C-alpha cells in the first residue's frame, strides 16, 4: 500500500520534471540555436587553421589566438606584439566610452524634459525620439557625413559667414566616429532613462528643495541615485553596440580609423584569416562581459540596489 503510494509520488514527480522541460523547450531551443550555438561555432573556428582562400582547415591550431596578440614578420619570422590590434581595441574602448558619456550628457536632459511634460504630450515626444529607428542606420550615417564633410553643411555655412577660410577636417576623424555613434545610439540611452525618470516621484524633489538642497544637490543626491537603474541600462545599451560598431566607423572613419568591428570584418574578408577574426570576436565578447560585470557590480555597491 505504502509502496505503491511512494511509486505514485515518484512517478508524479518524474512527470512534473518532464513537463517542466517540455514547457521550457521552445525557449531553450531558441537560446541554443540563436545564441549559444553560434557563439560556440565562433569559439571553435578560433582554434582552427586558416584556409588559403578564406574558410578554415579542420585542424587544431592556436595560431588565430597567437595572432590576436602577436605578429610574425613575413620575411624573417621574428615575433613582435601586435601593436595595431592593441591600438584598435584601445581606440574602440575609448570611443565607445566617450559615446556613452555623450549619450548620457545629451540623453539625460532629453529624458528629463519628456518625463516632465504633461502625460498626454509624452507619447508624442517619445514618438519623435524613436523616428530615427525607422531609418536604416547606413542612411543615417550618410546623413551625418553630409553635415560634416568638407563641402558639407557646417563647413559651407561657416565659410559663408566668414568665421573660417578653409574647411575644417571633420570627416575621417575619431570625432566623426563619436559624433555618428552618439547620434545613432542616443535613443537607446533616452528610452531607459525616460522609463526611470517617469517613475520618479517629483514630490521627492520638492522635499529636497525644502530641506535646503541646491539645484545641484537635488540632482546629485536625489534624482541621479533614484534613476540609477535607468542610467546603468542606458549605458550598457549604448556601450555594447558602440564597442562593436561597424557601419559608423566604416563610413565616417574612412579606412584609417578602424574599430574592432572593422578589424574583424577585415579578417573574414580581405584578410582571409577566419580563425583570427573568430579569436578577435571572442576577445571582444570577453571585454564586453568584463565591462558589464564591472559596471553592474559597481552600481549595486554604491546603493542603487535599494531602489527599483
Amino acid at each position, binding site marked *: 500500500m505504502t509502496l505503491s503510494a511512494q511509486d505514485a509520488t515518484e512517478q508524479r514527480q518524474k512527470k512534473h520534471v518532464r513537463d517542466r522541460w517540455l514547457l521550457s523547450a521552445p525557449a531553450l531551443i531558441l537560446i541554443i540555436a540563436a545564441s549559444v550555438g553560434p557563439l560556440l561555432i565562433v569559439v571553435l573556428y578560433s582554434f582552427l587553421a586558416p584556409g588559403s582562400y578564406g574558410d578554415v582547415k579542420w585542424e587544431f591550431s592556436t595560431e588565430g589566438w597567437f595572432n590576436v596578440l602577436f605578429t610574425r614578420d613575413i620575411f624573417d619570422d621574428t615575433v613582435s606584439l601586435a601593436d595595431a590590434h592593441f591600438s584598435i581595441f584601445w581606440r574602440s574602448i575609448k570611443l565607445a566610452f566617450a559615446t556613452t558619456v555623450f549619450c548620457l550628457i545629451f540623453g539625460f536632459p532629453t529624458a528629463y524634459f519628456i518625463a516632465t511634460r504633461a502625460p498626454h504630450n509624452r507619447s508624442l515626444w517619445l514618438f519623435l525620439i524613436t523616428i530615427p529607428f525607422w531609418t536604416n542606420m547606413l542612411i543615417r550615417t550618410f546623413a551625418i557625413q553630409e553635415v560634416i564633410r568638407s563641402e558639407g553643411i557646417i563647413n559651407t555655412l561657416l565659410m559663408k559667414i566668414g568665421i573660417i577660410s578653409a574647411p575644417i577636417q571633420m570627416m575621417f576623424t575619431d570625432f566623426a566616429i563619436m559624433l555618428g555613434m552618439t547620434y545613432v545610439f542616443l535613443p537607446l540611452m533616452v528610452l531607459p532613462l525616460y522609463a526611470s525618470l517617469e517613475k520618479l*516621484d517629483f*514630490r*521627492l524633489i*520638492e*522635499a*529636497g*528643495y*525644502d*530641506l*535646503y*538642497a*541646491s539645484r545641484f*544637490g537635488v540632482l546629485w*543626491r*536625489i534624482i541621479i*541615485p*533614484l534613476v540609477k537603474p535607468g542610467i546603468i541600462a542606458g549605458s550598457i545599451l549604448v556601450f555594447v553596440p558602440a564597442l562593436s560598431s561597424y557601419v559608423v566607423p566604416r563610413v565616417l572613419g574612412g579606412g584609417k580609423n578602424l574599430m574592432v568591428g572593422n578589424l574583424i570584418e577585415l579578417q573574414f574578408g580581405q584578410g582571409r584569416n577566419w580563425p583570427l577574426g573568430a579569436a578577435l570576436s571572442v576577445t571582444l565578447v570577453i571585454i564586453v562581459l568584463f565591462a558589464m560585470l564591472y559596471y553592474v557590480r559597481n552600481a549595486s555597491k554604491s*546603493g*542603487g540596489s*535599494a*531602489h527599483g
Partner: protein
Amino acid sequence: MHGIKKWFGTFQAVDDVTLEIRSNEFFTLLGPSGCGKTTLLRMIAGFELPTEGQVLLDGTDISRLLPNQRPVNTVFQNYALFPHLTVAENIGFGLKMLGKPKSEIDSVVKDMLKLVHLEGRGNNPVTQLSGGQQQRVALARALAPRPKVLLLDEPLSALDLKLRKSMQMELKRLQLETGITFVFVTHDQEEALTMSDRIAVMSTGTVRQVGSPWDIYDRPAERFVADFIGETNFLEADVVSVSGDRARVRLSSGAEISATYPDGVTPKGKVTIVVRPEHARLGPPGSGVLEGVLDDIVYLGTDNHFHVKVDGGGTFIVRQQNAKSGPCGFSEQERVSIAINDDVAQILRD
C-alpha cells in the same frame, strides 16, 4: 501673511488672505478640499509664489525666496521620504545640505530618533518601515534643521483611525517640546479641534473665521463655519433687543431666548441663529421653547440623536448622552418640547 492672492490661470485659488500666525503656536488651516489651504501652505514653503501679496516671517518678506532659502520645513502628505537613503540619512539630509559638520548631524539625528521613538532604527532603509513609522521619520526629518515654522500638509490622512488618534497626541507633544510654530493643514474638523491653538476655517480661497477651537465650534460667525464643523441646527429668529454682547431673539414659536453675536455685527430684524444639538434638551410638551413631533431616534452608543419635526417647519436635532443604561424614555411620533440651554445660541453674520 498679508493680502495673499494666488491665481492659477483664470482660477483664483487664494483670494486676499491675511493671516497672522503667532510664534510657538499650533495653527490649523481647516477647510474642504479645494478651498486653497494647501496652496496657502505651499506659498509659505515656497513651492508656489503668490500672485499678489507678501509672506512675512518675523517681519521680513520671504515671499520671493526659494524653498531652500526659507527656514521653513514641510511634512508632506505622503511623507516623500527618500527611498534610497536610510532612516538616519533621511533625517540628517537637511543638516547635511546646510553644510553642518558630521558630528553635529549625528548627534541631532540621534536626538530626533529618540524624540520620535525610533531609537535603533537609524540604519534601516525607510522602505521597510510601516506607515506610522514613516510618518515619524518624515516629522523628524522636517524638525531636524530646527525650522522657524513647520508645515504639515494633511500628514495623518494616510493613517488608520487608531494610529491617527495617537499621532494627534504625538504631534501636539512634539510641538510643545520643540516650541516650533506648527502650521497644520487638514480637512478633518476633529483633528483641528483636538490639536490646534487657533484655527482658520477656509472656503473657496478665503478665510472665513480665525479663532480658538472653542470660538470656531461654539461661536461660529457664519453659516459655512457652523455647518462645516460638527452638526448644527439653524433657526430663523427676530431680534427683539440688544444689550451688551447679548441679544434677545424671538423664535418662530414665539418664545424668546438670549443669543451671542459675532464682532462687528449689529443684530437687527430677521437673523439666523445656530444651536448645537448637545446644547438642547428634550422634555414633555410645554416645557421648552420649541414644540414638535419626535420623528426619529438614532442610537449611537454614547448618545442618542433625536430628530424633531418642529411645528411651523424644519427639523431640529437634539443630542443627549446616554448617561444611564436603559431606554431613553421617549418614543417616535411622540409630541415633545425642546429646551435650549442659556448662552449657547449664536447669531450668524447674515
